[in-house]
């Protein structure tokens, strides 16, 4: 099952500070330090730091990929642009060795869309092909519902929408084998719960 999901900035803040990766949203579906009777405050701290470490890793991976593709490193939305073609978004994957920063080996799948990175942290037994499709699906809905191309602050102010999208398409980190009709049905259900 997927270990976590996060949204972060790709090292380019509006104020122009480079090298600044900010985690805007993160959810860990399961904590690693469970069986140890660890101090929960520390567990929470560890979880946050792991997420930041992954975000930094993704930022540099995305910059390298953009360089290799000879694309600008910091992309900006052109005004009036309402949709983004996810086929053009940079996609990448890398693995994290045990102990760095997670206890067990993880595979990180990421999608770089303009100035944001979207990340799935997968466990060893996850179907990565399915994870890639799921990540793209989730990002598609995030862009649509958080108005990521026009509204800059929804991504941090409307966490309920992000949560609802994740609850629908990645419940508790479970990747789902959804054909297009299942997707449509879930989309309808999700939209009706969001519009209420």
């Amino acid at each position, binding site marked *: 099952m997927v270990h976590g999901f996060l949204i972060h900035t790709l090292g380019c803040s509006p104020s122009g500070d480079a090298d600044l990766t*900010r985690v805007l949203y993160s959810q860990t579906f399961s904590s690693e330090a469970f069986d140890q009777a660890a101090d929960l405050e520390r567990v*929470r701290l560890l979880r946050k730091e792991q997420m930041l470490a992954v975000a930094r890793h993704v930022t540099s991976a995305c910059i390298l990929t953009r360089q290799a593709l000879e694309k600008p490193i910091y992309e900006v939305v052109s005004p009036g642009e309402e949709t983004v073609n996810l086929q053009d978004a940079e996609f990448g994957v890398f693995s994290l060795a045990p102990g760095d920063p997670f206890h067990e080996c993880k595979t990180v799948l990421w999608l770089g869309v303009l100035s944001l990175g979207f990340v799935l942290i997968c466990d060893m037994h996850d179907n990565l092909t399915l994870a890639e499709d799921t990540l793209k699906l989730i990002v598609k809905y995030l862009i649509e519902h958080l108005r990521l191309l026009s509204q800059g602050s929804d991504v941090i102010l409307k966490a*309920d929408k992000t949560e609802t999208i994740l609850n629908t398409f990645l419940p508790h980190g479970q990747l789902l084998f959804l054909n*297009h009709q299942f997707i449509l049905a879930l989309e309808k259900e999700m939209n009706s719960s969001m519009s209420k």
Partner: protein
Amino acid sequence: MFTAGADNYLRQAREIQDEELQKFCARIAGFLQQLELGSETVDNLQRLYLVASATKYGKKLERMFLELLQRVLCAPKVSLQVQVLCTAILREVSPYDPFTLSCDQIYDTKLLSLVFSILLAQGCNNKALAIGNRIVKMMESRLPKGQSLRHLLPVLSKLTSVFPASLSDDQTNLINKKLVDWLRYASIHQGIGQPSGGFFSSPRTKLPGPITEVDGAVATDFFTVLSIGHHYTEDQWLNLQAFSMLRKWLLCCGTDSTSSTSSDDKSEVDGSIMSMASVASTSSRLLLPKERVREKAFEYCQRLIEQSNRKAVKKSDADLQKACLIEAIIIMDIVCRQDSSYVYRAVSFLKIVHARICQDLTFAQALLPIAQFFLNHSEMAAVDSEAVYRHLFTRIPAELFYQPLLALEFIHFCRTNARFFNQNISVFQQSFPNLLKFLAWNGPGLVSDFVEFLPSLIGPDTAIEILHLLLDLPCLTAALELQLRSQSAPASERVLIDSALHPASSVEAFRHSHYKNLFQYLLRCEAWPGDTIDGRFHLLRQMLVDMAGCPRVTQCIETVPVLLQLFFKVVAEFADGVLINQLVAVLLDRSGLLFSVPRFQTDVHRVMSSQLLALCKLYPSVIVEQSKELLEFSGTVTNIQNKENFFTHVVWAIGEYLSVSYDKRCTVDQINKFFEVLEALLFEITQLRPSAGVPKSSPRLITVLMTTLTKLASRSQDLIPRVLLYLSKMRSCVQSSAMISMYGEEDSEDILNRATELMNLLKMPTVAQFVLTPSAEVNNVRYHRDAIVSLPLAMRTVSRLLQKDSGFAPG
């Protein structure tokens, strides 16, 4: 996207003071107590979530307030949006004990799922486990209208993966039975959609149509995730959930450790529970629930694999087919590992599947689980799977090196099975040039995985070729870039140029008949058994230089030094004299034949230099055995240009290891020969060069050359007068105005000092030999610490004696 406004919100959320936060909570509490859950409350809850989640250290909220959030979460008629927000806040706040949060009274499955995520995040394992028990109970009973188990299956899946042993055998059996039903016996008719309720629409909805396949044909067999309908029934949703969790479930609960042999659980192959009496009589046909799950899982996977052969109308379904194919093969593998009686069926089935997907590169990712399957089971099934591996290793890297996910999975696959492949599969040992394409293309993203994998490729037979490949890795990247560009170019730009004219660029060279063979060599899929260095190959290296600015090539260049270091570290573990001789020869040869990017050459020379010394230390005889090549190399003054660092190390190694104490075969004659060559070289660079206006050599090289000459002289004492004369000449030469203007006062003085020191040493040949050719014991710590035997003592004594003799003042 992320604007200054958003950044500002984030900062405020991080910097909020406790007092202000409590006030904010009090205001929200006011709304919540009144159950005023309108847009203002939602707005405030959204902000509270931001505050709770934005910092590394959790925000402490008052207990009363947290309990209020819990009450609202579980209160009837609260919108899902508010529930989701309360859940998110309770999950994110600083750890607290949600002791009042109880799942006993919750009948809403979605809410139960939300509560579970809070309990898990807050580390309330017992309560989370209690939810597991609730879910199993709910499976047995009828759920209230409007509730669905499908929201709870992911919870169950999560529970079994976090706490693998949490379910009792009875519970596991019950879930197994349910899984069988959901997987195999979901309805094959579509569900009934919500009536649109229009005034003119007929009150009687049409009978639901049949389920179809992804290509639109009517389904002929049971329902799977690849079955299409406009509306899905509850059991079809559960079919989806069951398959999604199946792999994890089989891994967690399918092994024999959780087996229950209670005959109650045995049931007939086709469904209904049998009486105790009939169980005994027909036990051979009876299966335990977990065995039935395996059986149904196997059938399900077979059907999915067949379905993945259909041409999907929708692109997203085509993508799903690939994911399903992979999942199905992996599940078959798990089933076969758990119960070997499936192996024969699976092998013959997957042979056909393999033949099918070999024709279609879009399914390439599924080749890895198939290969893994054959690797696990072909021995048992006594089938030859050489063809599977051959296709995988020869075709896939060459054609799909640019797919990042495939590259990573491919390397993981090789890494996991490297030992087996190395021992059994010759095609694997031959295919390293192909595997390196993944690295050449995906450079930085893959390098850490490759570093783990590379050692298993390096063996006595492959080391030399791999060294060449690593040194030419940037050329490979450039060639792959050209290959991809040429594939997407219009046909007119792909025809072979057969002209006497020299190609003007690497793009032209790629389709130029003169370069065809060279590119084929560079892009080869298998090891090249013959001579790996084609004299003409350097032409191609030079031709590819116009690709040096390509960012991917630049990234590759950065990875090479690390890989080279690793290469030598691995080789050092098994290298014998023969291999070390070959390696040193390659280093001497290749130091001048590198992709000509200055930074790349500098970095590679640095590694080559340190590794040359390491190799000599490992096998000092290499200096004697390679003396011909070394003489040739060190006698060529042009070798200094562009690779002075490496050259200096070669000279140092000669001085250090050309000694009878390392190799009995080392003759005076040999020492004299080296002496002459190096002497001539030193003369050339110090006394001829300055006037010729040729680039100067560094003072370091000059001092190393002087020292090396002195070392050699100390071993062949007839040379001492000659070197003394030479050194005194050097001293006067260095003091000349031409040299001072070239080297500056400081460097000239350093050279002068070194010459003086060496002359002093040589005045006592036995001491000189002791200092300049110390025995191997010199590495012993005692040598440096013990006041009686130490090297410093010897040095001090020499200085004192000399001081008395000639009045030279020691420094």
